[in-house]
């Protein structure tokens, strides 16, 4: 599936749309008018040098960072601006962090069910069933009673994915999900992401896993200095990049 980046947000085929997004830290502009639309069930990969604004864009998508201006829509519902029930809408956007951020005082199931119980007010039995189901999707239902400290990094990240999945989000955001992992543990996390894609999840992924991007992504975006420099299918971006900056960045990666 290919979508042009300037599709209007309310379109039915679009899960997440970002329009003219600006964000500065102090006087330093980080995002300079970003437009992006992610279609339903699409997996979009975001590449770019550090400081290019990838993570900031992702974090604006559930307003962990407050955008300075611009609009963000999730399935046509506006996320930005006043009067939005942020906690409600955040449940429709799953977020996976580089450092997992599992709650160390709760076991895997407790991590997954906390928001179900406290925000969705699910009864305990129902929440635990849903939590186990989510853990099962990442292959860890057998570890439900383990605490984060008793799990490997890869397992922790999969629990973090289950924590987001349990809320049945429309979109999942991944902020360098494998950067903090030992190389031999990366594969398990990527396998889970591949499964999610096969089941039709919409995903926006910031990552340096080039090989995975080439295999699994529907579309790759190259960002630099707060702007989208180039966008296209992986074959094009990796095989025949149109922009000099993209080429320079990729050549550094291939060494």
């Amino acid at each position, binding site marked *: 599936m290919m979508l042009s980046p300037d599709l209007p947000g309310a379109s039915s085929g679009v899960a997440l749309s970002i329009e003219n997004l600006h964000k500065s830290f102090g006087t330093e502009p980080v995002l300079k008018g970003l437009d992006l639309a992610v279609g339903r069930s699409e997996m979009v990969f975001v590449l770019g040098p550090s400081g290019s604004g990838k993570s900031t864009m992702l974090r604006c998508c559930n307003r962990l960072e407050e955008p300075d201006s611009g609009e963000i829509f999730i399935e046509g519902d506006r996320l930005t601006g006043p009067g939005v029930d942020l*906690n409600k809408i955040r449940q429709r*956007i799953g977020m996976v962090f580089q450092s997992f951020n599992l709650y160390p005082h709760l076991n895997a199931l407790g991590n997954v069910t906390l928001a179900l119980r406290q925000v969705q007010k699910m009864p305990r039995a129902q929440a635990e069933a849903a939590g186990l189901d989510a853990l099962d999707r990442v292959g860890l239902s057998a570890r439900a009673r383990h605490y984060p400290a008793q799990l490997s990094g890869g397992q922790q990240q999969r629990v973090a994915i289950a924590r987001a999945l349990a809320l049945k989000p429309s979109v999942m955001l991944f902020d360098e999900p494998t950067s903090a992992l030992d190389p031999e543990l990366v594969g398990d996390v990527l396998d889970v992401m591949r499964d999610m894609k096969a089941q039709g999840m919409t995903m926006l992924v910031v990552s340096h896993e080039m090989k995975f991007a080439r295999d699994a992504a529907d579309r790759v975006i190259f960002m630099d200095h707060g702007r989208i420099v180039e966008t296209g299918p992986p074959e094009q971006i990796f095989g025949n990049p149109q922009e000099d900056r993209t080429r320079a960045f990729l050549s550094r990666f291939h060494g």
Partner: protein
Amino acid sequence: MDALVEQFFNLEIMAKALPLVLKGLGITLLICAVVIPLGLAGGLLAALGSVSRNRALRWISIGFVDVFRALPPLVLLIFIYAGLPFAGLSLSPFVAVIIGFFLNNSAYFAEILRAGLLSVPKGQIEAARSTGLGRAQTLIWVTLPQAVRNVLPDLLSNVVEVVKLTSLASVVSLGEMLHAAGLVRSITYNASPLVLAAGLYLVLLWPLIRVIGRFERRITH
């Protein structure tokens, strides 16, 4: 040697003092039972204020904590008990003690809880907020449990300090344990009741001090 035993370990006098001292122990524990929860609550509020994004609230909270950490608790207690009556506000010794110790302990608990709150990584809060938990829910279910766990030895140490602090209530004639022991001493001219009280403080606090030591070792290693 005999004089020493006679003066400090006179069992006969200790036996006579025991009922009064035990009654005093009851009041000591009562003060603790009131002041510790109040101090924790006040301390939590001040700690939250001191890490707030609102600058005015932050400065007021830190100012409160620092002033009451600078003021000796006995000065505070005497000011409340002996100073306020001049302004027409007479408080019973018990109420004066509770107010004074509440202010003092809120400051100390606040400083400990503040360190605890700051020890929780920012990513924990972001993860919670990203799943739709509100500010208060994040505090209750994610930040606070970790904060408390990280500073548990310090919180327990402060509980020990509160128990020791209650001895100051004797100065305003509240009949807690030290006051009771001092009373019997002044009648008998013998220090054994004070030794008895000291012994009871040890029984009460030594196990706690050992437990804290073990906690601290577990955390540093």
